[in-house]
């Protein structure tokens, strides 16, 4: 129990005194045990008071003790409360720290997320821009290709229309050909009729010739019988002639004997006259015998002619047997000729057979050009189709990329939303933490010591946060730079990929072109190997006197020459006969003379042609030689000879027109394309040898040598 009116406070000097009241300490007021002298006066009062006070003190003590115990209990309670509060404070502080850390971390995450979001947005924007650009480019290229395709389709339609027109033209030409073939058949029929007429005429002539032959045979038979008779007569006459000759000799002997005896009587004259008459008769008989002999010769000639006629008849019969084959061949040739002539008339722009070839070559050229154009158009069409496919592929790729970019954009949007949600959560947490921190700060505002420490902690946290933020910014910058580098590399990779795709496409087109060209080359090579050529640019020539023809010509020439000799002999014999014989065999003579005249004409023409060839060749050779001499100043003599090794070589001897003597000659050997100078007296002379050494041995130029020699000779002649 505490006194209601406490006594005034006395300073405690001793140790038993109570402590000075400081703060919330309990002050126990006690009476002093040693009262002072002042206290003696009040000693009487004090006994009662002592008793009272003792009880009071005991009461107070008990009260104080109770109060003390209560206070102690309260203090303990307060201590426990303080401890709990301290614990709570530490816990709250820790929680605050944790929340602050979380707050900082969330702020960091938020900043990172913002940065990522920015970067992603930038990326997305770039990708969108790129995809839009590509899409627009692809659209433009598609548009261009569509325009090209349209133009190519137009060209193709034009080419098809031209092909159709050419086909129509071909059909028209075929119709014309069919018409021509009809006209040709009519011509053929007409010609066959003509040929049948000619055949009949030939038959008639053959029958006439047969009749003539029979007549000739009869005449020959009659001539034979006549010749037999004449021969028998001739023999008789010969005998008679011999007898007459014998008689003549006897008569001459007699005459001589008569003349020697010198007896001239009339009987002798008569005898002489008779002998003369006999002589005349004998001479007449001799003349008759000669006539008969000549007639016999004529008969023999007629026999020969008969044999010839027989052989000719056989030949005519054999040729008649060949007549149908000849007629067939004539028909075919006439058909061809008529067809060509009708073609000539019907083909426009053609006036002679030579024009047909040109026309055909021109038409072939046109066809080739048109096929080439069609081929080129088809190749271009294929190329455009390939390009269109490629652009469509690119378009599809661009669409796919756009879809991917859209998906990425959607994903990024979702990421952004997620990050925003995270950010909202983090901001909520931050606000919660801020509220907690403020509450803690408020709860801790009573304790000034903790506040200062919190402020220092916060300052340190803030400084570290600032440092970390700076570090984060630097990291973000580096990250952005790296991302830029990555984006650039990605763009380069994409660009390279595009290039690669385009190069692959170009390679494929080139491969196609190379295959096409290879096939064309093989086709052209096969045509070249086959021997095809264009008549407009090329002409095929061969030598006239080829070896087989030469041999055949020689044989035919020899045969003709033998025939010519025979005919000449026969002609002489016939001319002799003609001069001696009469009308016998006049008709045969006319035939023979006609043929002889023909043969003579042929011989004359052949001889003339040979002479003409010789003169032309000689003229040309002489002209060439003279021209060479006048142009180059050297007379050239060519001589063929064979070397010891069997290889033929040609020797050329050159003499300058300005040469002062005949010894000034140059000799060259030409063999298989190689020309070499031969040493002789002239070339071994001093100056000439020097020139040979310089121009021919050193510079390998024979024209320079000859030109120099000509100039020197010319100078010598003109100056001297």
């Amino acid at each position: 129990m505490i006194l209601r009116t406490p006594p005034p406070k006395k300073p405690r000097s001793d140790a038993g005194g109570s402590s000075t009241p400081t703060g919330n300490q309990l002050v126990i007021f006690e009476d002093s045990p040693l009262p002072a002298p002042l206290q003696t006066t009040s000693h009487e009062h004090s006994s009662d008071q002592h008793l009272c006070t003792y009880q009071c003190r005991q009461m107070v003590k008990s009260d104080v003790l109770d109060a003390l115990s209560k206070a102690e209990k309260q203090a303990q309670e307060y201590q426990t409360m303080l401890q709990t509060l301290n614990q709570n404070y530490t816990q709250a502080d820790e929680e605050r720290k944790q929340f602050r850390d979380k707050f900082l971390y969330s702020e960091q995450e938020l900043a990172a997320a913002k940065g990522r979001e920015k970067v992603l947005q930038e990326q997305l924007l770039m990708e969108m821009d790129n995809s839009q650009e590509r899409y627009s480019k692809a659209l433009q290229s598609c548009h261009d290709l569509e325009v090209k395709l349209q133009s190519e389709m137009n060209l193709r339609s034009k080419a098809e229309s031209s092909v159709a027109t050419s086909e129509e033209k071909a059909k028209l030409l075929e119709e014309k050909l069919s018409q021509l073939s009809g006209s040709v058949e009519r011509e053929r029929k007409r010609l066959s009729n003509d040929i049948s007429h000619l055949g009949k005429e030939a038959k008639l002539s053959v029958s006439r010739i047969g009749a003539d032959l029979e007549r000739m045979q009869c005449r020959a038979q009659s001539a034979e019988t006549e010749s037999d008779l004449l021969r028998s007569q001739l023999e008789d006459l010969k005998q008679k002639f011999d007898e007459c000759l014998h008689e003549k000799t006897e008569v001459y002997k007699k005459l001589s004997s008569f003349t020697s005896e010198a007896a001239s009587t009339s009987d002798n004259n008569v005898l002489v006259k008779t002998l003369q008459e006999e002589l005349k008769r004998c001479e007449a008989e001799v003349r008759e015998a000669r006539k008969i002999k000549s007639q016999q010769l004529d008969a023999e000639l007629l026999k020969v002619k008969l044999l010839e006629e027989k052989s000719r008849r056989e030949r005519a019969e054999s040729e008649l047997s060949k007549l149908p084959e000849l007629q067939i061949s004539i028909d075919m040739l006439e058909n061809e000729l008529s067809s060509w002539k009708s073609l000539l008339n019907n083909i426009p722009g053609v006036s002679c057979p030579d024009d047909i070839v040109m026309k055909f070559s021109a038409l072939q050229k046109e066809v080739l050009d048109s096929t080439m154009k069609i081929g080129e158009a088809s190749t271009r069409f294929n190329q455009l189709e390939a390009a269109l496919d490629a652009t469509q592929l690119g378009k599809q790729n661009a669409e796919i990329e756009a879809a991917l970019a859209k998906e990425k954009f959607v994903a990024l949007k979702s990421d952004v939303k997620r990050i925003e949600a995270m950010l909202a959560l983090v901001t909520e947490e931050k606000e919660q933490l801020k509220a907690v921190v403020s509450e803690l700060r408020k709860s801790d505002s009573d304790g000034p010591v903790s506040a200062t420490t919190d402020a220092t902690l916060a300052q340190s946290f803030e400084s570290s946060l600032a440092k970390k933020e700076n570090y984060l910014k630097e990291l973000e910058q580096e990250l952005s730079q790296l991302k830029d580098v990555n984006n650039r590399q990605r763009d380069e990779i994409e660009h390279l990929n595009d290039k690669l795709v385009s190069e692959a496409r170009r390679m494929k087109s080139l491969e196609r072109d190379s295959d096409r060209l290879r096939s064309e080359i093989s086709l052209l090579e096969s045509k070249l190997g086959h021997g095809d050529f264009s008549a407009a640019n090329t002409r095929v020539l061969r030598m006239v006197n080829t070896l087989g023809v030469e041999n055949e010509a020689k044989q035919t020439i020899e045969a003709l020459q033998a025939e010519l000799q025979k005919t000449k002999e026969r002609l002489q014999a016939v001319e002799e006969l003609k001069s001696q014989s009469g009308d016998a065999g006049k008709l045969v003579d006319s035939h023979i003379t006609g043929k002889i005249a023909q043969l003579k004409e042929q011989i004359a023409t052949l001889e003339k042609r040979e002479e003409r060839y010789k003169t032309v060749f000689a003229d040309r050779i002489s002209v060439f030689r003279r021209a060479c001499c006048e142009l180059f100043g050297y007379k050239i003599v060519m001589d063929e000879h064979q070397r010891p090794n069997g290889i033929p070589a040609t020797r050329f001897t050159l003499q300058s027109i300005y040469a002062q003597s005949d010894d000034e000659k140059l000799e060259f050997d030409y063999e298989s394309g190689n020309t070499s100078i031969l040493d002789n007296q002239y070339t071994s002379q001093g100056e000439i040898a020097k020139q040979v050494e310089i121009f021919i041995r050193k510079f390998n130029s024979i024209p320079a040598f000859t030109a120099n020699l000509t100039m020197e000779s010319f100078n010598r002649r003109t100056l001297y």
Partner: protein
Amino acid sequence: MASKTAAAKDIITLHGSAAIVSEFFCYAANSILYNRAVYPEESFVKVKKYGLPMLLTQDESVKSFLSNLSSQISEWLEAGKLQRVVLVIMSKATGEVLERWNFRIETDSQVVDKGVSREKSDKEIMREIQAIMRQVASSITYLPCLDEPCVFDVLAYTDTDVAVPFTWVESDPKLIANPQMVKLHGFDTKIHKVDTLVSYKNDEWDEEE
């Protein structure tokens, strides 16, 4: 001729190149006639050319024919008018074309028009011609046998503006129907490029197969 007209071995003129090609054709024709037995073996004599033993015919008619041909070919080559020379082997009895030895010639028109010269080693040209001659000799392994007597002829494919000499006439190309073709080596003088190809009639055995 090239070695004579060139200051160094490597320079080739138009005249020299024409001489080389015409000489090559002469020797090639002789080799073909020998290897295909168009003329009997005993009518040929061995000479050294292109570093190989070459066979030349001694038949006067063939010799004169080939020499006239060679001179005309050389003239056309110098004028740049010759496109092809074809040696045709035909059956003597039927006249059917059995083989065509096709020598296609490409001429450098700049050399013909301007008269410039080119450079190429003579040895290399000779090596190229040697390879062709070896191939001609080895052609008997795959060409069908010519069991019947044959004759040969030479065709010249020229430009249309060439003046035809009086010893030459226009001819048909004497083609073979459905031939087999074998491409041989060629040679190039840098002025004239010659490609060789032989086309022959399918053998009956090959047709049956």
